[in-house]
């Protein structure tokens, strides 16, 4: 777990971030409250399916209404505030898209090949390893994962007609 270390220069940015978070909560709470009413709140003596979700939504809206003005006034010390640099944003996006690609490719080219590509991509483009290391580790990890999960643990990962 990371703890909230804040730096003075980031205060402005973090306040804006907190306002955004509060607004997201507000919208979420609003949608959920509307939906809950549709499901039927029931009566106090016979609560319906929307009863608890409605209560939770109202709580979210109420808390958001506390959070947003509090952050706008800047009354609290920001708990967040690390600025995401361009490099880390790039890394996060690269990791995110590699995971989506993993899911998309899995049933097309099979577990072994997808795993090798996935590990290779991350090592080379996020980890910054040399091509030699990348190729070797990616192949080794893919084969080891195949042996561990498919052969030993009998997890039914998708395989190509060739059997891997």
């Amino acid at each position: 777990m990371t703890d909230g270390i804040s730096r003075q220069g980031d205060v402005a940015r973090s306040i804006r971030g907190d306002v955004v978070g509060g607004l997201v909560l507000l919208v979420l709470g609003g949608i959920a409250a509307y939906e809950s009413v549709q499901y039927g709140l029931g009566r106090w003596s016979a609560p319906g399916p929307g009863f608890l979700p409605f209560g939770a939504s109202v709580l979210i809206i109420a808390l958001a209404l506390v959070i947003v003005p509090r952050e706008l006034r800047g009354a609290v010390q920001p708990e967040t505030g690390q600025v995401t640099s361009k490099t880390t944003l790039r890394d996060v996006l690269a990791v995110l898209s590699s995971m989506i690609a993993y899911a998309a490719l899995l049933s097309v080219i099979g577990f072994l090949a997808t795993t090798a590509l996935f590990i290779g991509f991350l090592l080379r483009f996020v980890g910054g390893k040399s091509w030699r290391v990348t190729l070797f580790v990616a192949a080794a990890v893919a084969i080891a994962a195949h042996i561990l999960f498919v052969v030993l643990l009998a997890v039914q990962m998708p395989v190509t007609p060739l059997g891997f």
Partner: protein
Amino acid sequence: MQWSNILLGFETAAQPINLLFCLIGVLLGQLVGILPGLGPAAAIAILLPVSFTMAPATAIILLAGIYYGAQYGGTITSVLLNVPGESSSVVTTLDGYQMAQQGRGGAALGIAAIGSFIAGTVANLVLMVIGPLLADVALDFGPAEYFSLMILGMATITIFTSGSVVKGWAMAAIGVLLGSVGKDIISGVPRFTFGVRELMDGIGFVPVVMGLFGVADVFLSLEEEGEPTVIKAKVRDALPSGEDMRRSGWPIARGTVLGFFLGLLPGAGSVVASFASYAVEKRLSPTPEKFGTGMIEGVAGPESANNAAAGAGFIPLLSLGIPATAVMALLLGALMIHGIQPGPMLFSLHPEIVWGVVASMYIGNLMLLILNLPLIPLWVKCVEVPYAYMFPLILLFCLIGAFSLQYSLFDVGTLIAFGLIGYLMKKLGYEPAPLILALILTPLLENGLRQSLMISQGSPMIFVTRPISAAFLFLAALILLLPILPGRRRFVGSES
């Protein structure tokens, strides 16, 4: 004491397969404890799908082993490298690392292992005695008591996780919404499914947890620039001296008791216990100014406290079906996936599982005590593995784990989505633990709420006129008022 059950427990735990998985569990736990980027919650979430193929007792023995094993592992890097592998070992860096620099790393690790062993064993013994008693009391709980107990659980977890209490409650409320996704049990009305067929059975909590803890932690770690500078200390004198033992006796005893009671509270857990113990030892010491310069009391107390708390957390889980921490919530989920409904009936319906797990914790603690010192050189090597190699593996395990739950790409999508959500949450100062707890408790909470109101014909007074329920709610209110009281700083944040 229920001797026949205890015997049954040891019979279960001593089966070769269970011994093997207990050993694997505590070793994996130590490894997880040592690696700073990977916590026990993420590790257990990753291994959940693998454990489905095992017998229920074996699965829980393995997963529990990871949890208390991690408490030992986190200590090693705190002492030798000044890098706490686990948040419950953060406070150990203060005096433990100083001791290591003075060449007394072995003594620090030795006393930590001994203290951990004593605390873990005592917690286990008390669990054996009061677990079944508590379960008996809980058999009389009606829906109102359950509802109030859940509220108490959520109150404690919001107060003890770092970050703002308001945000903690917002996360708990979001967790309730996520927990109500799917078909309503009473009326069959689909809620928040938006026409998606896969959501009819609700949101799978395993991919959510793997996303919020495993994947999100990878994103966060990618931000930390460079590798941590590691200054290695040598382990010379491998064992604590007689003088060390004498000085550590009372801190271990106090840490055990303190940690045990804090561990019982839902939401508090071992992190709070270790900080509280350090504060107590410093206050009681005749030389408080020497704390931070290598006082063995500052290692012995907190290290005992975090293990006692880890052990005590099993009491509400096994006797009430209430998880005290995110890790306990995962174990609860594991039981449920094996078709076992946790709750007060667990002791009578599945004695072999409950007592088997309890017995395995004795054995596991013993294994850890024996293995701790000889394996240190190996663990130190593991810390040197660069993160560039670790994070692709963590992600791969998460992907395989999510997919293998029910061989569905939908779960993989859930994993990725919650990885991103968890990352953004952390960036904005929202902690995932209350969300997870609420997500898991919502079915019980909702049942308790709706049934209570039906029984009372619509009067919410039922929650305060029943004494036990009223007591739970009173405690919850007290806990919520705690940070508002003047002169009381939240001790989680202020110590670190």
